């Protein structure tokens, strides 16, 4: 008997000739927030949809709460899809009572921030409020597993901080959480990370485990835009962190040559690489192959 709330064992999914998910094994345990990272099209949403039994696996096996992801087990799950899964033509109150009935739970009370919206049609709410409604709907039946696909995309910083408080509280009461994000600061709030690229799981563990052997060089210069353009034109894997220019897996001597050829004065310094730089190197490998 395992305590895994979500488990994938050698799971593959093909759409015609295209392999969206390729031999992925992973799991999520009670009380942890697992962050699923990867570029657009890496296979994150397809993997989630298989874990939840919304689409079939081509091969391999998925388990939700220790068995196949059937309707009975899905009742113990909370899921906020990218599209939020709310009914735009129903009010907030109607949406919540509908989803509570579907899960066999009592309709949840509205949090203070939403009480003014109880009788407003969901499609007339701002996106941030819609996300909060989707969260309330997904949490009403105290799910044992919570799956969130880009929960904070497009949300302002205050609302984002509040949504992460909610996510943390769910893990603290023992739920297992699987969350996808493109926001690396959010990735750092997860207990464990999973990185997908081109359908495969290419890294797992802490931030340092994900970054692996990727290195980076920081470029300090007066005019960052000029240096950025020169390095990008030379084909270097350039990233930006705020206004700081960084180049992944680069040879500082080679960068110095490119910059001085463009007449740009800069100082170069090796720095620890980031998850984004690891993702950039992966996407370049995928393009080259």
């Amino acid at each position, binding site marked *: 008997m395992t305590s895994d709330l979500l488990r994938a064992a050698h799971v593959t999914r093909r759409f015609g000739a295209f392999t969206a998910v390729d031999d992925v094994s992973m799991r999520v345990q009670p009380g942890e927030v697992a962050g699923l990272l990867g570029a657009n*099209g890496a296979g994150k949403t397809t993997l989630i949809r298989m874990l939840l039994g919304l689409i079939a696996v081509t091969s391999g096996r998925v388990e939700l709460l220790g068995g196949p992801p059937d309707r009975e087990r899905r009742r113990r799950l909370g899921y906020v899809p990218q599209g939020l899964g709310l009914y735009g033509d129903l009010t907030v109150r109607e949406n919540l009572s509908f989803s509570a009935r579907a899960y066999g739970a009592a309709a949840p009370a509205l949090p203070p921030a939403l009480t003014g919206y109880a009788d407003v049609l969901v499609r007339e709410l701002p996106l941030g409020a819609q996300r909060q409604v989707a969260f309330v709907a997904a949490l009403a039946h105290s799910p044992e597993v919570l799956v969130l696909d880009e929960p904070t*995309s497009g949300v302002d910083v205050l609302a984002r901080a509040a949504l*992460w408080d909610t996510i943390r509280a769910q893990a603290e009461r023992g739920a297992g959480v699987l969350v996808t994000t493109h926001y690396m600061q959010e990735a750092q709030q997860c207990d464990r990370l999973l990185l997908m690229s081109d359908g495969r799981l290419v890294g797992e563990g802490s931030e340092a485990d994900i970054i692996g052997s990727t290195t980076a060089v920081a470029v300090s210069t007066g005019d960052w835009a000029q240096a950025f353009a020169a390095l990008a034109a030379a084909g270097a894997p350039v990233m930006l*962190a*705020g*206004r700081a220019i960084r180049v992944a897996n680069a040879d500082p001597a080679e960068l110095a040559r490119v910059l001085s050829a463009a007449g740009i004065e800069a100082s170069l310094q090796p720095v620890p690489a980031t998850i984004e730089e690891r*993702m950039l190197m992966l996407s370049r490998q995928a393009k080259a192959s």
Partner: protein
Amino acid sequence: MTYSVRSATVRFGRTVALDDVTVEVPAGSVVAVVGGDGAGKSTLLRALVGEVALDTGEVEAPPRQRLGYLPASSGSWAALTVTQNIDFVAGIYGLAGDELAARRAELLDRASLTPAAGRLAAQLSGGMRRKLGFIMAIVHQPALLILDEPSTGVDPVSRIDLWRLASEAAASGAAVLMSTTYLDEAERAAHLVVLDRGRVLVQGSYDQVRAGFAGAVTRADQPVRAEWAWRRGRVLHEYWPGGDPPAGTATIEPDLEDIVIALSLARRHEVPS
């Protein structure tokens, strides 16, 4: 040339979407508008495009054929290929033949979309679709380029491509106004505007915004006043508008995210929603 909205107020029924907002966008630079949904970002951008009329105030924008606009929704036709999407929009601006072919090839290359030229827009990933929308907004070399959340939901690698395209457009002389919910992107802009519920909370270069920030931000596991605290990773940050945190608390140098949250909180305490 500098484009602008001045003292702009826009009401939708009883909602004030923009409240006395002035923003300037000079040719050759990128101006970033930051704020959550409902802050007024799209209304501000659409006022410059001419899709929203001001109740009061003035708009200074080029004529429509000198303006490029990427709306927050996809901005391309799902049932057309990448090439067909670009050619259709280019045709509207009178671009055809060899000139169009050369421009299309150049833009596809700069956006790393050349291998996807024959693909239906419906089959593109989110990041690729935003880059296609960007190409369509810029194909006619507009004087003013307006991008509504080009990077929301886009992965970090494609986001850098989009940023490179925007800064190249500015470097070749366009005035670029983009909205974003990512504060690290706003830091890069020559000028950033923080909108909150229709009003400008603060604007200026990143250095000006930082220098003008009053008060102190502290870091702790437990906040002293929960209503002034927010989560940053595993710890909480807390704002002291008067710059008077209790002795012994760890004061930190706030980044743009801290500054935006602190100013938003201060406004919430001043003007409850």
